[in-house]
C-alpha cells in the first residue's frame, strides 16, 4: 500500500526482478491438458465453449486470460476450479487430478471469485472475510484466533479494514468487491482464480490489487485472472493467454501476446500497441473514430 502513488509499470518490473520463485523451476499449481467443454443443454450442433485448451499456472506466477466476450474465459476459470466438469482432457491441481480431490481439498488448493451476487442477509465485511476460512475449520466450523487474524490481515491488505463492521449490502460496488477479494485471500489457497476482479475497482484499488497479488506471488502463490483491460493485464501478469472461440489463440509474455496482428484477429477491431517508455511493457489503445 505504501507505494500506491508510484507509476504503475516501474513497480511491476522491479518486483518481477526481485521475484524469489523462479517460474521455470517452480511447482505447477494448475495444469489443464486438452480440456474441452460444452455447456449442458446447448444445441447439438453448437460449438464447444472450450476446445482442447492446454494451460498451466506455476507457483509464483500470475497468468491472465484475455479475449473477446463469450470467448470462454470465464468457463475456463470455472473448469480450473472444478465448478464445471470438463467433457474431455485432464485438470490437475497441485499435481493431483481434480476429480480425485474432495470439495474441501480443492478449497484448500484454489480460491475462486466470480461475478458479484451477494445475499441480502445483513452479513458484515468481517463475517464475509471470515467465510474464507471455512476450508480450514474443524467439525463444528468454529473459527479460532488464527482464523480471525487471517481475515483481518486480508481485509487490511485490500484496504477495507475500516469497513469490517459495516454490512456488505450497504457498501458500494467497489467496496464490496474488495471485501470479496479479502474473503478469497483469507482462504489462503495456493492458487487464486479471479473472474474480472478489477471490475468496479477504481484506479488506485486496481493497483492495490495487482500489488497484493504480486506480493502473494513472491510468497509462492499463483493466480489466474480473467481481465478485459489489456494494459492492466500486461502490467499485472507474467503470462497472458488470448482466448478466442474457446481456444487459446496465443500464449506467452505480455509482449509476445499483445501485438496488433493477434489482437485485431481476436477482437476484430484495429488497435495500436505502444511501449511504456519506463517499463517497456505493451500498452494497448483501440483506434476509435472521432
Amino acid at each position: 500500500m505504501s507505494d500506491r502513488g508510484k507509476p504503475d509499470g516501474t513497480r511491476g518490473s522491479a518486483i518481477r526482478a526481485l521475484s524469489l520463485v523462479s517460474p521455470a523451476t517452480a511447482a505447477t499449481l494448475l495444469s489443464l491438458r486438452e480440456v474441452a467443454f460444452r455447456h449442458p443443454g446447448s444445441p447439438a450442433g453448437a460449438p464447444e465453449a472450450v476446445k482442447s485448451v492446454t494451460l498451466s499456472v506455476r507457483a509464483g506466477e500470475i497468468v491472465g486470460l484475455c479475449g473477446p466476450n463469450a470467448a470462454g474465459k470465464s468457463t475456463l476459470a470455472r473448469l480450473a476450479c472444478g465448478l464445471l466438469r470438463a467433457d474431455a482432457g485432464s485438470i490437475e491441481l497441485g499435481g493431483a487430478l481434480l476429480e480425485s480431490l474432495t470439495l474441501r481439498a480443492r478449497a484448500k488448493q484454489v480460491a475462486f471469485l466470480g461475478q458479484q451476487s451477494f445475499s441480502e442477509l445483513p452479513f458484515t465485511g468481517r463475517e464475509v472475510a471470515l467465510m474464507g476460512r471455512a476450508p480450514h475449520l474443524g467439525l463444528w466450523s468454529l473459527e479460532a484466533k488464527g482464523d480471525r487474524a487471517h481475515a483481518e490481515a486480508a481485509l487490511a491488505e485490500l484496504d477495507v479494514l475500516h469497513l469490517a463492521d459495516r454490512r456488505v449490502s450497504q457498501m458500494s460496488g467497489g467496496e464490496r468487491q474488495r471485501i470479496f477479494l479479502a474473503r478469497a485471500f483469507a482462504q489462503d489457497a495456493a492458487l487464486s482464480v479471479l473472474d474480472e476482479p478489477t471490475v468496479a475497482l477504481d484506479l488506485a484499488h486496481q493497483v492495490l490489487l495487482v500489488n497484493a497479488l504480486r506480493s502473494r506471488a513472491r510468497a509462492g502463490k499463483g493466480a489466474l485472472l480473467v481481465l478485459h483491460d489489456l494494459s492492466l493485464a500486461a502490467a499485472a501478469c507474467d503470462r497472458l493467454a488470448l482466448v478466442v472461440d474457446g481456444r487459446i489463440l496465443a500464449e506467452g509474455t505480455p509482449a509476445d501476446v499483445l501485438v496488433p496482428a493477434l489482437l485485431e484477429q481476436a477482437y476484430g477491431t484495429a488497435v495500436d500497441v505502444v511501449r511504456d517508455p519506463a517499463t517497456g511493457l505493451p500498452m494497448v489503445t483501440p483506434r476509435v473514430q472521432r
Partner: protein
Amino acid sequence: MSRELDDARRAGAESAAVRAVRVLLLLLPILAAAMALGLTSGGQPISLTAALHGIEPDSTILRSLRLPRVLLAAEVGAALSLAGVALQALLRNPLADPFVFGLSGGAALGSALVAVIAPAAAASAASLLGLVPQQVAACAGAFGAAVMVFTLGRVRGQLNPERALLLGVVFNSFASAVVIAAQALLRPERTQQMLLWLSGTLGYETPPVLIAAGLAVMLPLAALTALAGRLNLLALGDEEATSLGVDVGQTRALSFLAASIAVGASVALTGLVGFVGLVVPHAVRMLTGPDHRVLLPASALGGAIFLVLADAAARMLFRAVGAEPPVGAVTALIGAPLFVLLLRRRA
C-alpha cells in the same frame, strides 16, 4: 445503529459458540416468563401457585388446558421460525417465510388430503398413530411446495426472489381453495372448522402428540444447526460456496427437508399460522447478527416466545368481546405490516 455496530464488532471478536450460549442464556428466562404469562392468562384467570399446590379448578385448568396449549404454541413457534431462517438462508433473502413461500400451503394440502381421503385416520388424530399419516403427508406437501417454488422460481439458474415469492403466495391461495372446496364437497358440516384451521388455530393436544411435535422441532433444529456453517457460505453464491468446499446441492436438499418437517408437523396441528418465520428471525437477527450458528438456536427460542405471547394476546385482548381470534390472525396482524416494511426498505 450504534448497537448494531457493537454487535457486529463483537461478532468478529468472539467465537460463535460463545455468542450462541450468551443469547440462549438471555432468551431462556424470557421464554420462561412468556410461558408463565401464557399459563395464567385466559378466559378464566388462574393462579400459578394455587394450581401447583393442587387447588381446583386452577390445577385442572393448568394441566389439561393451559399447559398443552402453551407447549404447542412454543413448539410450533420454534418450528416455524427455524423453517424461516432456513428458507432465508437458502433463498438468500430475509423476506422468505414458510407461509409466504408456499410451504405452509403445501403442508395444508397434504394434511387435508389425508383427512378427506382417510377420515378415519384423521378422526383418531388425538392418538399418536392416527396423526402420523397426516403429519407425514403435511411434511411431504411442504417439501413438494419448496421444490416447486425453488424450481419454478429460477431464471437462468439464478433464483429470482420476487418470482419465488409470487409463486409461493399464489400457491398458498390455490392450496387453501383446494382444501376448502374438498371439505365443502365431502364434509360440509366441517367447513367452518376447516376455515378456522386454515387461518391458524392452536388447539389442545394430548401428551403423545406434543412429544411428537417436540421431536419435529428438535430434529430440524439439530440438522440445521449442523449445517449452519454451510448456510452462512451460501450467502456468497453457489459457485463461491462450492469453491469453499460446500456441497451446495446436498446442503440445499437437507435444509429444505428439515424446514419441511418443521412446517409439516406444525401445519398438521395448527393450520396456517403465518409470518412467524418472517418476524422472529428478523427480530433475532437484530440481536445476534446473521451468523446461522447463533441465529438458528436463538430463533427457535425466539419463535417459541413469540407464539406463546401471540396466543396469550389472542386470549387476553379480546376477552372483553367474549371472542378469541385464531392465533394466525394475531401473527398476521404483526407480520404483514413488517413484511411490507422490509419490502420497502430493500428498494
